[in-house]
Every structure is written in structure tokens, then in C-alpha cells.
């Protein structure tokens, strides 16, 4: 249902009324922003000197290091979570009961515990001196569980004829899984997988709490170590770092949307999963209407 179904095409009176609402609404939003900016300016947070600190090569170097550290842990966590996701998904669909139970228990346990709790426990308990590895391990465990559920939804959405045909050809279970089901599942769920990677990227900021020097922690260090006009430049630093974060996440989201569009254009029987959004809630996959993945009434080419 498009939005326009909710209201008629505006007549002359409604056009005027909508314009009035538009002007009042925009004025209210602009006024709110202006008050915020003015309050900040009053307290000297928007003084040119506050922003001048980003011209220092030392601080630029710090930010570059922070971005690199974030990307490094993101890369580790992405690889780790995808590998773990494949293993857990295969385990959960295994024919052997103990394997299936083990995988299910692992997934359900770590999916329902806050990520921060897991990361902190790993950091304090096992990897105190290696905060990067603690962060990467925690992220891999949590996101691996989510990716496993996504992959499972993808595997279940592959038409049954595919695996039946593969078995009829005499392929082994491993061959069917790795050669037939997994590639189609990955292809179908790619947008969802990438949106979960966006969540992973966002969650690298938890490194702030276990003192891993990633981007957010760098921001805090910069802000609390630079004294400008007798104040710490928290506002300007947070704005700059925030823009970098949002840009990184938007880039990755754009990639997911692009892949989804490209997949829809391709003439295979596999339907791509719905528009990628960094869904905070992997539990959506448990909806009673079945997996949110590709619809089974795929148009056959």
C-alpha cells in the first residue's frame, strides 16, 4: 500500500492546509535545531578553536589509527561470524541429534545474552591483555549465532527439488549441503547477511567499554586530552567521529541495497531476501509466518 492511499489527492483547501502544516512543521524542526546550536554556541562549544584541533596532524593520525583499529576488528569479526554462522547453521540442520542440540543450545544461549556481557566476560576472564581479540571473539560469537539463523532460513527456503535432485544424482550429504544448498542460501540471504554485518560494524563501538583503542575510544582520548579555551572539545570530536561512523554504516547498507537490486534483476529462480535494513532484532526470524527470507512462491524462469 503506497502512502497516498491513506489520503485523497488534496483539493485547493487541503493544498493550502498542507502548505501551512509544512511551513509550521519545518519551522518547528528548524527552531529546535537552532535552539540547540545556540545553546552550544553560548557555552563556547562551536568556537573555531574547537574545530581547529582537527587540523593538527597528530589528531588526524589518531583518528586514522582509530578508523583502522575499528576496521581491523570489524574484519576479524566479520570473518569469524560468517565462519561460525556456517558451522552453526550446518550443525543445527544436522541429522545427528547431539550435534543439532548442541548447535541449537549455543545459538539460543548467546543470542539471548547482551553482547556487552559476553564481550566483558571474555575480556576479563580470558583475554585481559588482548582487548582486540576479546572484542573480535565476542562479536563473532554473537553475530555468528545470528548469521546461523539467517543462513538456516536461507537453506530452508531453497526448493526441496534441489536437494532431492542432488541426492538422486548420488551426491553425499556434505556435497549436497556445500555444493547445492549453501550457495543458493548465501545468494538469497546476501542482503540480510550484509545488514547483519552493518550491525557488527556498529557493535565494534562496544570496544569503547573494554578500552580497545577503536574509533570511539580514540574520540574520548582526543577530547579528554586536548584543552581548548579552558574546555574539553567533546562536542566537536563527537560530531566528527559520529559523521565517520554514520558514513561507514551507510556505505555498507548501500552495498546491501545494491546487491539486492542486482539480485532482483538476475534471472534465476532464487528470490532475494527483502530490503536490507540493519535489523536490530534478529528474533524477527522467528516470526510465525516462517522465515522472512525469500518467498517460496518464487517466479520460475
Amino acid at each position, binding site marked *: 500500500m503506497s502512502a497516498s492511499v*491513506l489520503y485523497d489527492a488534496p483539493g485547493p483547501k487541503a493544498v493550502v492546509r498542507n502548505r501551512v502544516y509544512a511551513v509550521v512543521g519545518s519551522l518547528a524542526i528548524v527552531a529546535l535545531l537552532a535552539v540547540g546550536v545556540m545553546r*552550544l554556541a553560548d557555552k563556547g562549544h562551536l568556537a573555531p578553536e574547537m574545530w581547529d584541533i582537527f587540523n593538527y596532524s597528530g589528531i588526524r593520525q589518531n583518528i586514522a589509527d582509530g578508523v583502522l583499529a575499528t576496521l581491523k576488528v570489524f574484519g576479524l569479526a566479520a570473518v569469524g561470524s560468517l565462519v561460525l554462522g556456517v558451522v552453526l547453521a550446518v550443525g543445527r540442520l544436522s541429522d545427528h541429534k547431539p550435534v543439532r542440540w548442541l548447535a541449537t543450545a549455543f545459538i539460543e544461549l548467546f543470542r*539471548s545474552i547482551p553482547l556487552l556481557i559476553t564481550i*566483558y566476560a571474555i575480556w576479563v576472564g580470558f583475554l585481559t591483555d588482548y582487548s582486540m581479540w576479546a572484542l573480535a571473539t565476542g562479536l563473532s560469537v554473537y553475530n555468528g549465532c545470528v548469521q546461523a539463523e539467517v543462513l538456516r532460513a536461507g537453506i530452508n527456503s531453497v526448493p526441496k527439488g534441489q536437494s532431492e535432485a542432488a541426492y538422486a544424482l548420488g551426491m553425499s550429504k556434505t556435497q549436497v549441503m556445500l555444493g547445492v544448498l549453501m550457495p543458493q542460501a548465501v545468494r538469497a540471504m546476501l542482503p540480510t547477511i550484509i545488514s547483519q554485518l552493518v550491525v557488527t560494524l556498529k557493535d565494534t*563501538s562496544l570496544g569503547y567499554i573494554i578500552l580497545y583503542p577503536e574509533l*570511539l575510544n580514540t574520540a574520548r582520548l582526543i*577530547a579528554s586530552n586536548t584543552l581548548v579555551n579552558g574546555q574539553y572539545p567533546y562536542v566537536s570530536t563527537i560530531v566528527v567521529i559520529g559523521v565517520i561512523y*554514520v558514513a561507514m*554504516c551507510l556505505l555498507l547498507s548501500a552495498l546491501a541495497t545494491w546487491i539486492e537490486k542486482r539480485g532482483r534483476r538476475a534471472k534465476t529462480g532464487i528470490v532475494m531476501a527483502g530490503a536490507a535494513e540493519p*535489523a536490530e532484532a534478529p528474533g524477527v526470524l522467528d516470526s510465525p509466518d516462517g522465515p522472512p527470507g525469500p518467498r517460496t512462491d518464487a517466479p520460475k524462469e
Partner: protein
Amino acid sequence: MNVLLDNFPEFRDGFIGTVSITVVSSVIALVLGVLIAGFRVSPVPPLRVFGTAWVTLLRNTPLTLLFLIFFFVVPEILFPGMSPFLLGSLALGLYTSSFVCEAVRSGINTVPLGQAEAARSIGMTFAQTLRMVILPQATRTVIPPLSSIFIALTKNSAIAGAFSVTELFGWQKLMSDRGYDIVPVFIWVALGYLVVTFAISGLFRLLERRMEVAR
């Protein structure tokens, strides 16, 4: 076992803290989310743009960054010395409102076309259509995703613990600072969270069953 019994008052405070921050920020998220979903489908373009910008921006911001903004920038704009609990629930509520908004919007999209058309044809305005016809019917489809959004909110509230809000993660940190072994602490905290998340999913399952209608 000892770690829980010896520090039970702190654990109880932390558990109550987790529950209360979850409840307060759920209410904020629900109200804001429905409002912004209304903005996003409204006939007034600037409000639509505002809604889209709100959702895009908040959904692509790490929650930790949002907490940092709320603890260092917002007190400067409003007034200094706001309580961490208030700031934390605001940050969490605003962040979750973007997800609620998207859930409500897709719920609106599942209401059959004829409903809105019928409402319009008997002369209802946009606000009336939305309030009296569309949203009540959308509620049913929105409940399952809302349940998982609120569970995610409960899990995210752990981050508030790192920003000096009294809740379960704060207890975990306190215990590890006091030198207790992390594994039992982890298990107790995990159990605490499991109780809250199970309560939420049970509540929503109850709601779902009560709202069930044969169509």
C-alpha cells in the same frame, strides 16, 4: 553461588535498574516510534523527510556513540547535571524508536487497501483514518516484531550500565572489580537478563493471543 548471596542487595538493585530502564525507554520508543511512523506516511512532505532522516540517522548510529552524545552533548544543550538514568533511557528510547517506526510502518502496509479507501470515502481525514481504522488493525501484525525489538532493547540496556546507570552490567563490572571469578558472575547476569527477556516474550505472546482474530 557465594558471589550472588554475598552481594545480593547490589544484584537486586541492578535487576530493578534493568527492568526500570527497559520499561521507561520502551514507553519512549513506542510513543515516538508511532508518532514518527505517522509522520512518514503523512501528506506533508517536510514531516516525511524528517521521519526518513530520523530513521536513517538513528539506525546507522552505533548505540555507544548515541550514549556518548547524550552524556556529553545533551546536558550542555538542556541543563547540566541530568541524572544518568534519564539520559540513558532517553538515548535508548530514541535509538529504539527508529526500529519501532519501521515496524509500525510495515504494519500499516499490511492493512488491506480497501480499509483506507473505505475510510476515505466516508469522509475521514488522514489523522482519523490512521487513528481509527489503520493503526488498530496494524497492531496485530506489529506485535511479533515489536516483541523482538523490545528484547533487543533489554539487551542494549547493558550499554547504559557502562555509563554509570545502575543495572546488571554495572553489577558484573563491580563484581569483577572486587575480584570474583568472572564465570559465575557471567552466569548470574545472563540469568537475570533471561528472566527479563522471557517475561517480555511471554507478555507479547499473551497479547498476541488476546488480539487474535479469525480473518
